[in-house]
């Protein structure tokens, strides 16, 4: 029978949640790396036992952990993230130049085909690659070499490269998103990059439709339609039908179009999920009601999913890497909150239940569907 493994990164350690395909009884293991921030964990699509984790603290810096048994045991691997050449400057919060400084790894994206190959999105924003299972890392220099880096600025969480999507039909095509710079696309495996932000409008920058400078919070793609991208921006939910060449707003009838997480149903490319958050300063659901919104039309028309979610006095946030889907026939949707709950729906969002509800603040959720 199939199994599901949910990888949960929190402010104070990592947890793995496992269930059979019914997804009604869950085993909770952890905390692994207790006391450390786990910004992200992700399993290799080519080998489910290979899992990477980003482990850091303000005390001891960054470590990368690797598991070869599905997250039961771990080995620290390479943690030297050296920017290529002279790092240069980006904009600081106050608009002054600020030197590029490595802070942490926000996101790990294992290769679709090679368990030893993995990309890392870091703060201050850059893309790194390892080809030896995380033992050594080198910057993918073409991204910052695009030349717009001096105009990039931090979002509230830091200047992070938080989203990496590799086109499953063309591994030479890679999308990344940076807060606050925007979306960049490479069509040559990372050698060269260009911004793909046409159609985005952001009030926090002098030129609202500038080529770069947008605070993109998250991108999502369905593997069967890699030219269609969904975006949760700082404000606005956006859609592109041409691999980022142009974007259109699909916020439609959402109660607020601010938010962080966005994902796509595993079998329905037009079914999209977001968790609306009240505003850029009030990082909690509107009216204290935790609602996932689902669109079955690729945006614009949204329905609130509330069955099993708290509908009063709920003031948690759902961060950008904290939503994921499984690929079972009845698609499972999962998300974690800053209140430490991990909610799951085994019926594509119709009903929800907490798998676990008192973890440290959840930073990331990933799902592995195991045969």
């Amino acid at each position, binding site marked *: 029978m199939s199994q599901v493994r949910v990888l949960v990164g929190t402010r104070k350690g990592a947890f793995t949640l496992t269930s059979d395909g019914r997804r009604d009884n869950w085993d909770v293991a952890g905390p692994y790396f207790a006391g450390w921030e786990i910004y992200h964990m992700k399993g290799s699509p080519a080998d489910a036992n290979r899992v990477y984790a980003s482990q850091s603290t*303000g*005390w*001891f810096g*960054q*470590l990368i952990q690797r598991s070869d048994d599905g997250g039961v045991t771990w080995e*620290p691997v390479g943690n030297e993230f050296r920017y290529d050449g002279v790092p240069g400057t980006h904009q600081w919060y106050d608009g002054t130049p600020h030197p590029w400084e490595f802070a942490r790894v926000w996101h790990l994206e294992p290769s679709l085909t090679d368990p030893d190959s993995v990309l890392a999105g870091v703060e201050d924003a850059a893309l790194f690659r390892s080809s030896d299972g995380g033992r050594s890392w080198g910057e993918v220099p073409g991204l910052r070499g695009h030349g717009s880096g001096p105009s990039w600025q931090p979002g509230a969480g830091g200047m992070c490269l938080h989203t990496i999507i590799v086109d499953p039909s063309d591994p030479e095509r890679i999308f990344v998103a940076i807060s606050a710079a925007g979306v960049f696309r490479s069509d040559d495996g990372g050698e060269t990059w260009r911004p793909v932000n046409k159609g985005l409008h952001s009030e926090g920058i002098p030129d609202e439709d500038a080529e770069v400078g947008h605070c993109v919070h998250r991108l999502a793609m369905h593997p069967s339609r890699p030219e269609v991208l969904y975006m949760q921006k700082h404000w606005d939910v956006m859609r592109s039908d041409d691999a980022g060449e142009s974007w259109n707003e699909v916020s439609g009838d959402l109660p607020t179009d601010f938010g962080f997480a966005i994902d796509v149903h595993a079998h329905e490319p037009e079914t999209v999920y977001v968790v609306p958050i009240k505003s850029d300063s009030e990082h909690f659901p509107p009216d204290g009601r935790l609602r996932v919104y689902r669109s079955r039309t690729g945006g614009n028309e949204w329905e609130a999913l509330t069955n099993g979610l708290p509908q009063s006095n709920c003031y948690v946030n759902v961060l950008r890497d904290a939503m994921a889907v499984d690929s079972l026939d009845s698609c499972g949707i999962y998300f974690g909150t800053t209140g430490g709950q991990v909610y799951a729906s085994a019926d594509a969002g119709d009903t929800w239940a907490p798998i676990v509800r008192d973890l440290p603040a959840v930073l990331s959720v990933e799902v592995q569907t195991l045969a």
Partner: protein
Amino acid sequence: MIRVVLPAHLRTLACVTREVELEITGQPTQRSVIDALEARYPPLKGTLRDPVTQKRRAFIRFFASEEDLSHEPPDAPLPDAVVSGAEPFIVIGAMAGG
């Protein structure tokens, strides 16, 4: 022989349960002690000092004999009491961390 006391998280990472003892060739300094520590316990590499800049991490402090050595030059000789093993070289996570 230099005795080094590590904070709990680094003891876990190094898989040790108590203070560690290091043999140092030549004059013991902060740099040579950390070099020896990282060589013996590779998971600690980069945790006390940035692996690229080699600078002490801002939230790491070095104490010995009730003195703060954090701002001593990395190649300055360690105090005699540390060199003789009478006192440990203590690595501390700053109060503000965690």
